[in-house]
């Protein structure tokens, strides 16, 4: 499977079939072992302060949660359901009005029960972040495994 096919597959299962990700319009940019990247276009509905046009914190939280989750999926050898255990977001500076936001997440350690991730959101320069995130995920949670959760194991990145 080449990179374009892999990204299309992650786009399908991680954004287009997850209603909230689809509602936000999240675009998968990249997915590799332990790595995930997404893009969120600025739009009026997602604004927190209408005076300034700055995005609310919420869309960034949802995007960073999704991106960290996708980085976890890339690390699973066998499909299993997982869920966010906790998520910390530091809002370093306001997002600039009208500009798309890029999130890059890394799953830097995984055990049998827990996956550890961190992520940054920026406007194209990762050295100048808008927000930083740290998330942990519980593995082997109840329920049927979703295609999004099994995609890493299926694509054998």
């Amino acid at each position: 499977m080449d990179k374009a096919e892999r990204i299309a597959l992650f786009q399908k299962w991680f954004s287009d079939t997850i209603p909230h990700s689809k509602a936000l319009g999240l675009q998968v940019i990249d997915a590799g072992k332990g790595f995930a990247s997404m893009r969120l276009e600025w739009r009026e509905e997602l604004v927190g302060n209408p005076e300034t046009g700055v995005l609310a914190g919420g869309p960034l939280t949802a995007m960073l949660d999704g991106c960290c989750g996708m980085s976890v999926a890339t690390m699973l050898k066998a499909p299993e359901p997982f869920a966010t255990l906790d998520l910390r977001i530091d809002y370093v500076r306001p997002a600039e009005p009208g500009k798309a936001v890029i999130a890059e997440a890394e799953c830097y350690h995984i055990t049998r029960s827990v996956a550890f991730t961190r992520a940054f959101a920026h406007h194209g320069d990762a050295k100048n972040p808008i927000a930083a995130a740290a998330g942990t995920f519980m593995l082997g949670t109840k329920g049927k495994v979703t295609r999004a959760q099994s995609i890493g194991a299926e694509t054998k990145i």
Partner: protein
Amino acid sequence: MSTLLERLAEARKAGDVARLAEAIPYARWMKIAPENGTGELLTRMRYHDDLIGNTFLPAIHGGTLGAMLEMTAIFHLLWETETETVPKIVNITVDYLRSARPVDVIARATVTKQGRRMVNVFAEAWQDDRSKPVATANAHFLIKSDADAPPSL
């Protein structure tokens, strides 16, 4: 003066906190609004299908719970404290306790510590049973902008 603070003044005059959400595009889009019908200030995220994160369970997306807990804290600071600026979020830590079913989510915030420039807020979200929270959060907000903060000695 910002639209939001003008809206706050109007809402106070009318005694109707729900008007605060009308000034925030993201709150309208997410159907997140404060309510004080019972005398207690709560924030509700009305269920709609765009909130779903897991279609198999089905469960509400964790990111939307973090977002609504953050809005809960903001509405609380605007309504229950004598804020003169729109609180600026510094950070938030969300703990996910249970999967959230496809029904309304309700949340309540409390101020843990109020400083001159910084406030620490705790917020808790639940669905049908208040004793079974689906998520909790701790957040810090700057309540005085850097520009009008008194110079440090």
